[in-house]
């Protein structure tokens, strides 16, 4: 089969995407497929039209790759592609939209407020910041609405730390959300073809928050898979993840990140195209389920070509 691997692009997560892409290409070659590596740029349509792949493996992360843009083009060109469709990508990449969808589906997600830059620049939203204490309480987490890999995510322990955190978050997106900080265990559930893989727990090195550096540096964060959970906990976490996956309209695969505290699981976000690098969580979960990377890649291709098989 001829497989185009879409990677790189202009996203801030270009580096991670190139690593995901390289690993996927490698696996595809070992599986005997013909691989066309595409570093996504202005010539994407030209390349796809010329290469005529049977299927596109989308290994792009972040804005521009994970948000449905490339997927939309692939749809127009009539090339089947891996992972969630356009609408699901668009919902997952936008944390505010995703949280609204998750909450509407009756699923638990920490309270939040979201603002556009315009609200501050033109509507005097700054005057509402004083109310955060009553509405969300401190500490809170300030995040760019779009983007992944913890880029631009800041903690604000008190009101006076909010403006700096906002300036940082607004560097990545024109919309940010401020979310109640839930202290608990950090879990990730990868979903493959509508089925949950074993839960991964991220245990940060002492004193470290789960940040970008820890996420991609070997040895900084310890991952446990399957996570040590009671049956009830595992059921609750897995169900919340699967329900989120369905509510967001995902197909193929996705990864749902959650926090588990004494009240139960809280869904933070879903990644439509989770990382596929050596240290990424989806491959770890697949491995824990007895599925080596090649087999995972083959299964993802199957799901793209025969969506009904999910």
């Amino acid at each position: 089969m001829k497989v185009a691997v879409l990677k790189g692009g202009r996203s801030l997560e270009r580096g991670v995407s190139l690593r995901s892409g390289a690993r996927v290409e490698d696996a595809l070659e070992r599986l005997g497929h013909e691989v066309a590596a595409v570093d996504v740029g202005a010539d994407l349509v030209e390349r796809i039209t010329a290469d005529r792949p049977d299927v596109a493996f989308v290994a792009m992360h972040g804005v521009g790759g994970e948000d449905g843009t490339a997927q939309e083009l692939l749809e127009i060109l009539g090339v089947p592609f891996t992972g969630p469709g356009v609408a699901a990508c668009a919902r997952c990449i936008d944390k505010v939209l995703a949280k609204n969808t998750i909450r509407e589906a009756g699923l638990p997600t920490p309270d939040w407020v979201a603002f556009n830059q315009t609200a501050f620049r033109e509507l005097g939203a700054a005057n509402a910041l004083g109310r955060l204490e009553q509405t969300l309480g401190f500490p809170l987490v300030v995040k760019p609405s779009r983007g992944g890999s913890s880029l631009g995510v800041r903690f604000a322990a008190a009101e006076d730390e909010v403006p700096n955190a906002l300036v940082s978050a607004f560097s990545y997106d024109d919309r940010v959300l401020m979310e109640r900080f839930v202290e608990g265990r950090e879990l990730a559930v990868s979903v493959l073809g509508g089925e949950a893989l074993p839960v991964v727990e991220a245990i940060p090195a002492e004193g470290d928050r789960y940040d970008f550096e820890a996420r991609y540096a070997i040895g900084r964060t310890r991952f446990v898979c399957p996570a040590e959970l009671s049956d009830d906990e595992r059921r609750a976490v897995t169900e919340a993840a699967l329900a989120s996956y369905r509510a967001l309209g995902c197909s193929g695969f996705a990864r749902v990140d959650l926090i588990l505290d004494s009240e139960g699981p809280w869904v933070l976000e879903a990644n439509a195209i989770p990382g596929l690098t050596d240290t990424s969580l989806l491959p770890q979960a697949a491995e824990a389920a007895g599925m080596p990377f090649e087999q995972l890649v083959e299964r993802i291709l199957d799901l793209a070509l025969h969506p009904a098989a999910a």
Partner: protein
Amino acid sequence: MSEVTQPPQRRRAHTSTRDLERYAGLFAARTKVMRSSAMRDLMAITARPEVISLAGGLPDTSTFPPQSFAAQMTRIAQESAAEALQYGPTEGFEETKDCILQVMAAEGMLPDPEDVIVTTGGQQAIDLVCKTLVDPGDVVICEAPTYPGAVPVFCSYQADVVQVECDENGMRVEQLEELLGTLRREGRHPKFIYSVPTFQNPAGVTLSLERRARLVELARMHELLVIEDNPYGLLRFGGEALPPLYQLDGGDFVIYIGTFSKILSPGIRLGWAVAPPPVMEKIVLGKQAADLCTSTLTQYFVREYFEEGKWRGYIEDLIGLYRDRRDTMLAALDEHFPAEATWTAPEGGLFIWATLPPYIDTSDLLAKALRADVAFVPGEAAYIDERGRNSMRLNFSGVTEAEIREGIRRIGKVISEQVELYGALTGEQRLPQRPAAAPEAEPEPSDENVLPFRKTGEAGS
């Protein structure tokens, strides 16, 4: 004739998670402090062709005459192919040292050739010095900000790095003195003080004569070494040349590091170190273990190049080129950076260091800048601790004047947007725009006058 059969290319499967864990158990403790950062990942995008990158530290090699390069390499091939392709002495060839002595003499230094070792770039010299002097946990002192490329070297030897603030006259030596006193009371003996005293990378500042004298005096008093890293000394666009620390000290307590990278080519990977004989002996052993000898071929190239006798002229050409580029950058900064920003006005070298209000994190700002297709080095790269997060390094040597103007315009725009946003968030009033080309009063030297500071209207040429 049978065709040469290519062995089947075997690509190893990427490692699995379990493999990684297995290897992680084998990693040396020092790898834990060798970090890859989010910033470095963002840097992956700066290589894209549409991005104007002021992030590099590249000298301009486009003006080096290709005919001259071709003629020298041809001569080497014709006259000394066998020698040039052979191993050479660990210390480097005597002929290479002759060239090094010429370069050092141009700045008033006359070392004994016996004290000189030729290294694979100045970077290896830093590594070898650390290898020779630093045990895990040893205190190493450097400037704040310091050369970003030295940070991973110090970290890989597990040094306890302490940074001393700089102002417009370089490292604040009175602060260093206090630090040395504190360390002594704690019973800790620092191994060395690493400094780029002239046209510092990244800050562009130059250590004043008075401080130079005091620095070498302190080194002598406390019996510790100063590592003088001087890649840019000959790239002076204006102002008075100052004596290198090596010259002031006579070479007893100063290890000198030089390089051909900025005056000829970084691609040839040729640098050197000068050290007192007992230290040099150990450095040579370290060099032998690291790579036996520096590239013979490029040493032959340097020899040929110096024999041609045009090396001073080439530096003069570079100075003219870089001076214009610095002036362009300073003018663009004046025009496009908001009044809340400050920056240095270097009299030489490759870099300007700009500092923004404390609420702007330049690593985050880089994300925004990259969307505008422009890049710089965020200040955090030059610090071990959390300082420097509101500063940035801007390179003017490796980019055209048009790129400098456009690049600074774009960065200025994203900064202004963040300043305005912060104003909207906090109600803080913005500073009035900087009056065009109005010379500003020299800031009073005070405790607040550490980097950042502004020095506009004093381009120094």
